[in-house]
C-alpha cells in the first residue's frame, strides 16, 4: 500500500505543476478527513484502530479521491467525498476487503451527481493561462478553498474531453486548430497529457514490482484504444476523438493503473481481470462518446464492480486433474 502511495507521486507532481496548489490542498483535506473517519468507524465497530490504520488503505482511498477531484474545489466537497468513501462505501460494508465497490470512486460519483458545478470547473493548465495571469499561490488557494473566494478570470477552463463533448458541428481538425488546448499540445491535450504520462509511469512501477498483474490495465487500455480506433471516423464533426486523445485524457491512465487495480472490488482470476478491464475500457468509451458525462472512469469502474461476481462465476481457472472449467454456482453432481 505504501508503494501505491509513492507511485502516485509522478501523477501528483504533474497535476500540481499543471494546475497549481489545488491538488495538494485536496490531498491534505482528504487524507485528514479519511483517517479521522476511519478511526471513528473502527472505534464504533470495536476494531483495533492502529492495526487497521497501518495498512494505509484509508490513505490510499483518500489520495486517489483527492487526485481525481478538481483542484481548488471547495473544502466541503472534498470532506463530503472522503466521508462517503470511507464511512459508507468502505466501513459500513465491513471495512477493508469487504467493500464491493471502489470506495474512492463511490465518493467521486456521489460528488459528481450532487455537486456538478463544483465538480466540473477545472483549472486552466499553466501554459494556457492568459497573459499576466498565474495560478493562485498557496495562501490565495487556501482562501479560495476554505473561504469560498472565486479565482480570477481565466484560471478555470475546460478539459480536452469537455471540449470534444461540447463542440457540436466542428470537425476534429477545426477543434484542433481553434482550441489552444489542442493546438499547443504535444500529442493529446495540454496539461492532461503529462498528467496521464505521470500516472502511466507510476503504474509501470507498480507493475514492475508485481503489486498487480498486467491483465486489468492492459485489457482496459487495449479496449479503450480499440474502441476509439473503430469509431475514429477520420475526424468528422461526430467523431468522439482520436485514440491518443482518449488514452491520454481525463482519468484514463489513473483509472487503468490505480483505480481498476483495486483488488477488493475487481474480479479475482487473471482471466476474470482481463474481462473486467475490457468491460471498463468499453464502458469508458461508450459513456465518453455517447453519454452525458465528458469522462466516465468512475461510472465504468462502479458498473464493472457490479459485474465482478458475475465474471468470477464464469472464469474459474481449470484445476489440476479436471478436464474442464467449472462455474462457481454449478452444483456437484450427485454420485
Amino acid at each position, binding site marked *: 500500500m505504501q508503494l501505491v502511495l509513492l507511485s502516485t507521486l509522478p501523477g501528483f507532481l504533474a497535476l500540481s505543476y499543471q494546475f497549481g496548489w489545488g491538488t495538494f490542498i485536496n490531498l491534505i483535506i482528504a487524507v485528514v478527513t479519511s483517517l479521522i473517519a476511519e478511526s471513528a468507524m473502527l472505534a464504533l465497530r470495536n476494531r483495533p484502530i492502529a*492495526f487497521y490504520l497501518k*495498512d494505509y*488503505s484509508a490513505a490510499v482511498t483518500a489520495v486517489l479521491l483527492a487526485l481525481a477531484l478538481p483542484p481548488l474545489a471547495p473544502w466541503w466537497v472534498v470532506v463530503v467525498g472522503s466521508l462517503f468513501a470511507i464511512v459508507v462505501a468502505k466501513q459500513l460494508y465491513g*471495512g*477493508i*476487503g*469487504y467493500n464491493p465497490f471502489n470506495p474512492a470512486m463511490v465518493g467521486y460519483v456521489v460528488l459528481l451527481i450532487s455537486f456538478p458545478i463544483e465538480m466540473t470547473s477545472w483549472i486552466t493548465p499553466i501554459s494556457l493561462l492568459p497573459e499576466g495571469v498565474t495560478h493562485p499561490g498557496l495562501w490565495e488557494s487556501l482562501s479560495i478553498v476554505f473561504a469560498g473566494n472565486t479565482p480570477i478570470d481565466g484560471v478555470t477552463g475546460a478539459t480536452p474531453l469537455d471540449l470534444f463533448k461540447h463542440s457540436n458541428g466542428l470537425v476534429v481538425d477545426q477543434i484542433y486548430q481553434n482550441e489552444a488546448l489542442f493546438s499547443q499540445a504535444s500529442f493529446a491535450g495540454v496539461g492532461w497529457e503529462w498528467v496521464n504520462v505521470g500516472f502511466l509511469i507510476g503504474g509501470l512501477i507498480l507493475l514492475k514490482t508485481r503489486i*498487480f*498483474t498486467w491483465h486489468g490495465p492492459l485489457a482496459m487500455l487495449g479496449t479503450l484504444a480499440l474502441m476509439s480506433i473503430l469509431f475514429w471516423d477520420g475526424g468528422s464533426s461526430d467523431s468522439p476523438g482520436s485514440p491518443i486523445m482518449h488514452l491520454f485524457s481525463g482519468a484514463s491512465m489513473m483509472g487503468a493503473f490505480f483505480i481498476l487495480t483495486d*483488488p*477488493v472490488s*475487481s474480479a*479475482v*482470476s*487473471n482471466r476474470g*481481470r482481463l474481462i473486467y478491464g475490457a468491460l471498463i475500457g468499453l464502458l469508458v468509451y461508450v459513456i465518453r462518446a455517447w453519454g452525458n458525462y465528458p469522462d466516465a472512469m468512475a461510472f465504468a469502474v462502479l458498473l464493472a464492480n457490479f459485474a465482478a461476481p458475475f465474471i*468470477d462465476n464464469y472464469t*474459474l*481457472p*481449470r*484445476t*489440476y*486433474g*479436471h*478436464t474442464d472449467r*467449472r*462455474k*462457481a*454456482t*454449478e*452444483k*456437484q453432481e450427485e454420485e
Partner: protein
Amino acid sequence: MSRTWETPGGVHPPENKSQSMTQSIGHLPIPGTLVIPLHQHIGSPSKIDVTIGQTVLKGQTLTTVTNSNNLPVHASTSGTVIAIDDQPVAHPSGLTAPCVTIASDGRDQWIEHAGITDFRRCGPLDLLQIITDAGIAGMGGAGFPSATKLSPSKDKAIDTLIINATECEPYITADDAAMREKAQDLIQGIEIVCHILNDPKRVVIGIEDNKPQAIKALRPYIQESSIEIVPFPTKYPSGGEKQLIYILTGREVPSGGLPIDLGMVCLNIGTLIAIKRAVIDGEPLISRITTVTGEACGVNRNYEVLIGTPISHLLTHNEFDENNCSRLIMGGPMMGFSLTSTDVPVVKTTNCILAPGHSEIPADTPAQACIRCGLCAEACPVSLLPQQLFWYAQAKDQERLEAHNLFDCIECGACSYVCPSNIPLVQHYRNSKGEIRKANIDKIDADNARQRFEFRKLRLEQADEQRQAKREARRLVTEQARATSNTSQPGSSAADIIAAAQQRVITKQASPEQQKAKFERAVLAAQSRLQEAEKRLIEATTNGSKQQQTICSASVESARQKVDQAQYRLRELTE
C-alpha cells in the same frame, strides 16, 4: 534429455539446504528408551504382539498383521518392553496414540535375518510380502503402504515408474544426502521395484536442479540401464506427487484419482532404499535418514535415526538452544507442523526436525483482512482461487467450497507463504475439509435413518391396507347376505328397513331396568365431562390465549348439550 513441463504457480522460498549438507550422514548413540507408535502409515493399525517385560531383539516384529491395509512395526534396537500405552506422538494436535516403549540394553543385537541373494528369481508376490513384512510405507510424508502401491491390478497396468527425488521443501536434505551416499542401494531398490512391476517401459528419476552432486553420484550407476535422470528447475512444490507427474510426463492425475489411473507409480528415495534393505539384506524398516537443522541447533546435519528415537535425543546431540528456538517443526517450514513436546518419537515419515531461531522464522504475525490481491491464486500449483476458498471457508459455504474444488487442494502452503495479510489459508482449508467430510458422514447417517423411517411407514401402510381390504371383504359378504335375506322379505322400502332396524335394536336391548341404568351412567359420564371442560375453561381464562378460551368455551357448551340430551333420554324412559 527428456522434455519437462512447467506447473502453474509455485513459489521460491529460501532453500536453506546447504547448512545440513556440510557433513556426511551421521549416527547417534542409541537412546535409552525408544517409543514406537503402532500406527505409522495410512491404514488400520496392526495388532500388538509383545507383552510388558518381554525381551526383544533388533528387527523383531512387535505387531501382527491382521488385514491387507496393516503394516507391522519392529523393535529398532534390542532391549526390554517396559510399557505398552498411549504416548504423545507426532501430530499437529498433539494427540496421544498407542506405543510400545523399549528400554534399550545397549547391545543393539539383531534378530536372525537373511536377505535374498538373487531377487530376480522371486516372484513379485513374494517380494511384495517381504516389503509388507518389513513395514515399509511411503517415507516422503504420506506413509502409504508401499506394497499396496506396487500390487498388480488386472485392469491397471503400470508402465511408468517415477522416482521422486525432488525434495522441494526448504531445509530438508535427507533424500539429497541419501542419493549422494547410498546411490548404489537406491539403484538396487529401483531394480527390485522394476522386477516387481515386470519392467515398466519408462523409469525416471525426477530431481530439482539444485542437487547437482546427487545427480553426479547417481550417473555412474545408470550408464548401462534404461533409468533416466530428469533434472528440472527448482520450484516449490514440484515434489508433490501430482506436480512431479505433470512435470515429467505432461499428464495430470484425474481429480480424486491416483497415479495408477495413468499407469504410473511414484516412489520416494527413502522408500526405495528401505525396499533394497528389506529384500537384499533382510532388514525391516527400523531407521531412516532425518535432517536436523535450524539456527537453534548448533549442529545441522543428516542422521540415520532409529525409528522411535525421541526428538529430545536428537536435539541434545545437536547443541540445541531452547532459548533461541521460535518453534519446533516436524517436516519442513511449508508443510511441516509444530510440535508441542520434545518427547515425541521419530516415525517412518519424519524427514526433518527443524528448530528455527527467532529471527529465522518469527512467531506468527496477526492475520489482516484479505484484500483479494490474488497473489495466492498466482502461487497455487493446482490453479485454485485460494482467496475465494478462504471467503467461502469463513462463510462455511460447503457447496461453494466444493464447487471451487477445495478437495483438489494439496495443502502445499504456497498461498499462505505469499499472502501479504499473513492469513493462515491452509489451516482454513484443512478445517473446512474436515467439516465437509463430517457433514458427508452425517448426511449418510441421516439418509440411512430416513430410509429406515420410510420403510417403516411403507410397512405400516401396507398392513393397514391389508386390514382395510379384509374389512371390505367382510362388509361385502354381510351385505350380500343381507341382500339375499331382504329380497326374501316383501315391501323392502326405506321405512321398512328402518323399522326393522329399530326392531332389532329393541330386541337386542335388555330389560327396562338395565336400560335405565345405562342411561343413568350416560348422564353421570356426561356430567363429569362437563365439569372437566369447565375446569379447563377456568384455566384458559386465567392464563391461556384467546384462542384457547374460545376452544374451551365451545367444548363446555357441547358437553352441556350432551348432558341435556342424556337427561332427556333418561326422563323419556322413566316417564
